[in-house]
């Protein structure tokens, strides 16, 4: 199998380059990450992040043949050769396939991603009906891999001002939670030409999400809530 992989080490390289690799393997049931681990055995300088290797930790997001995805749940057999791997677009590259995710995390933290409820805590759980809980499905499962935000042109242009699809999905996860009492403050924070309204519903985020989540839908719900409260 043939690979073409983005390489850049600031210690030794003046600029990035693409490097070709070959592996004498059959795709079989292997995932892309399995092949990358074999490449790393050959060349220990090849650098990328990885952890759970089952699509739940979000470490190994990268640009695979032009599309953002997780290497560990991308079957090798689904990929056209040479398999071209690049770092996630739009974020500064630290080395090879490793990007600096601070802007992404900063936007996530900016939406106050935690339950806000100042009422006295009951001695048992706060009750929530199965229907209320179902409102959180498709929201809480986000793994913060950044496939969505780094496929979004609005995030590329304004990563410092636009929250981006991952952050907005989480913003709505707390707005939608019947236990959260800060909806008004959350909406105030997002009523801004950049933070929310840079989203133009081109839905790259939906196509990119390896967990099948729909940030565009969540963003639409937030916009609806803002419209409702102005009329």
């Amino acid at each position: 199998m043939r690979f073409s992989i983005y390489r850049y080490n600031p210690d030794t390289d003046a600029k990035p380059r693409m490097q070709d690799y070959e592996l004498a393997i059959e795709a079989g049931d292997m995932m892309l990450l399995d092949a990358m681990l074999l490449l790393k055995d050959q060349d220990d300088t090849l650098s990328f992040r990885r952890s759970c290797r089952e699509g739940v930790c979000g470490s190994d997001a990268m640009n695979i043949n032009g599309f953002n995805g997780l290497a560990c749940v991308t079957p090798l057999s689904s990929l056209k050769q040479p398999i071209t791997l690049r770092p996630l677009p739009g974020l500064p590259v630290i080395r090879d396939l490793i990007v600096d995710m601070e802007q992404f995390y900063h936007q996530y933290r900016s939406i106050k991603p935690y339950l806000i409820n100042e009422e006295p805590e009951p001695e048992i759980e706060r009750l929530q009906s199965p229907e209320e809980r179902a409102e959180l499905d498709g929201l809480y499962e986000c793994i913060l891999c950044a496939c969505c935000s780094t496929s979004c042109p609005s995030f590329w242009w304004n990563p410092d001002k636009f929250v981006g699809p991952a952050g907005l999905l989480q913003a709505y996860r707390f707005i939608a939670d019947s236990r959260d009492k800060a909806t008004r403050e959350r909406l105030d924070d997002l009523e801004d030409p950049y933070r929310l309204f840079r989203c133009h519903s081109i839905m790259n985020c939906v196509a990119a999400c390896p967990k099948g989540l729909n940030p565009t839908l969540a963003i639409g719900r937030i916009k609806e809530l803002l419209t409702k409260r102005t009329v």
Partner: protein
Amino acid sequence: MAVAKRTFDAVIIGGGGAGLRAALQLAKSDLKVALVSKVFPTRSHTVSAQGGIAASLGNVKEDSWHWHMYDTVKGSDYLGDQDAIEFMCRQANEAVIELEHFGMPFDRLPDGKIYQRPFGGMTQNYGGDPAIRTCAVADRTGHAMLHTLYQRNVAAKTHFFEEYFAVDLVTDHHGYTLGVVILNLQTGEPLFIEARATILATGGAGRIFAATTNALINTGDGLGMVLRAGLPLEDMEFWQFHPTGIHGAGVLVTEGVRGEGGYLVNKDGERFMERYAPNAKDLASRDVVSRAMAVEIHEGRGCGPKADHVYLKLDHLGPEVIKSKLPGIRELSLKFAHVDPIEAPIPVVPTVHYMMGGIPTNLHGQVVAPTRTGPEEAIPGLYAIGECACVSVHGANRLGSNSLLDLIVFGRAAGNRVIDHLKENPFPRPVPVDALDPALSRLARWDRKGGGESVSAIREDLRQTMQRHCGVFRAAEVLKEGVAKVKAIAERLPHAALTDHSKTFNTARIEALELENLMGVALATIVSAEARTESRGAHARDDHPQRDDRNWLKHSLYYAEDHRLDYKPVRLKPLTVESFEPKARSY
């Protein structure tokens, strides 16, 4: 070499469930806390936990912490310390309610309370009908818990050192822990974190085996640090084989599948667990189910062309239950087994999953070791929690959904004890001039240029050897040969070399440091396993098939120096209730 220094009140190493919970406890007391993690915290292995967290809330049917305690003691094959088990089971309800208040999105029952499901080995009335005790967020409970705890730490403004690798503990000549040397992955520069309390929360080490459900990052880093500090590891022969890892891929399928009504079948379609555990059947404890599967496969009743796995059948649950309660399993099965469990069974094999042993601690999370005064003296300034610790609540076999509980209960308990310790020790102790030398020479060793064997070749040999010589069933000859082989592999490690010597995000260097930790853990495991001539919980010896309470109702302690073993008694006396005396264990 001058190394930059930062000073905190406490440092926590590891950003999984236990580390994040401890950090929250300390944040409440206005203390300066550093949390060091080699990955961004939500990439920690807690994220992969699926089925749930045990607590006797009794939301579905009657339950009590006494029953939970009994099940845990029995599940541990009586090797668990009953004081710690009582402590954990008593606090379980409070711990889970607190997670809910933190915002964790538990599934709900029609009355609005937290959803609970049956799990293996959990019963009512001391071994009666199955209990319904495991609190769940679909089959993504670990993900929901880890993200919730990270989110609370964002709110608490915890000081994170993300993508820093812990190299070694810094100690003085009186045995005090003074902090830790860490390595900044992005710059390649070491940093000394000085702290009056150091909490290890570095998780498991399943990567010593070739086939494991564990993440690639589970390399036993805290255990390696403890061994190098001259301290022992406890009960390292006890490794849990989870019955249902996806055949070939090793990816976990939660016991919650069987809790929801799924069951195992052999090639004849027979529900074979009825023969091995007539009462609990597929919800017997994990060691029992894994051994039954191994016997079925060994005796030629396995499935597939090589008859090397069995099937987990759940299609009879119907698409609605599978889609609402087991969506993550369906996704993993489709991706890794190419099977839609709505239509066909999932091929599964027993797969290394959890390390019952670890760094010996008491129920306050203090690391303990035999010293002049007794077998369990606290090492000043050093704590361990979560899977890297052996407190020991799991003994020889952990019950499913007790591990997430362990993280929360002992993360909190260690936080509380650290707060007391810091009040009693208001100032940092002097750091001897040579205290950082061991850590720095450990780093410098990998800068050596010139050829040598690759790290990956040694690592793969180690993992294959452990898999072959320390599996579900063990025997004297195989173990003895295994010990010799692992020692021979360990001797190759000092001659290994890297080709990558760059500073920036050098993952090759990290893998080398991880291999040093794996090596120590593997040696501890196989040496302890060879010595224990009985079968107890997950440690099953063909040549010693019975449990031997007269000689072996005791904890193993392994020291790296000369691979020395020592033993200490099991704490059979609970805090307030009567002891559960060891008796024959059947399900």
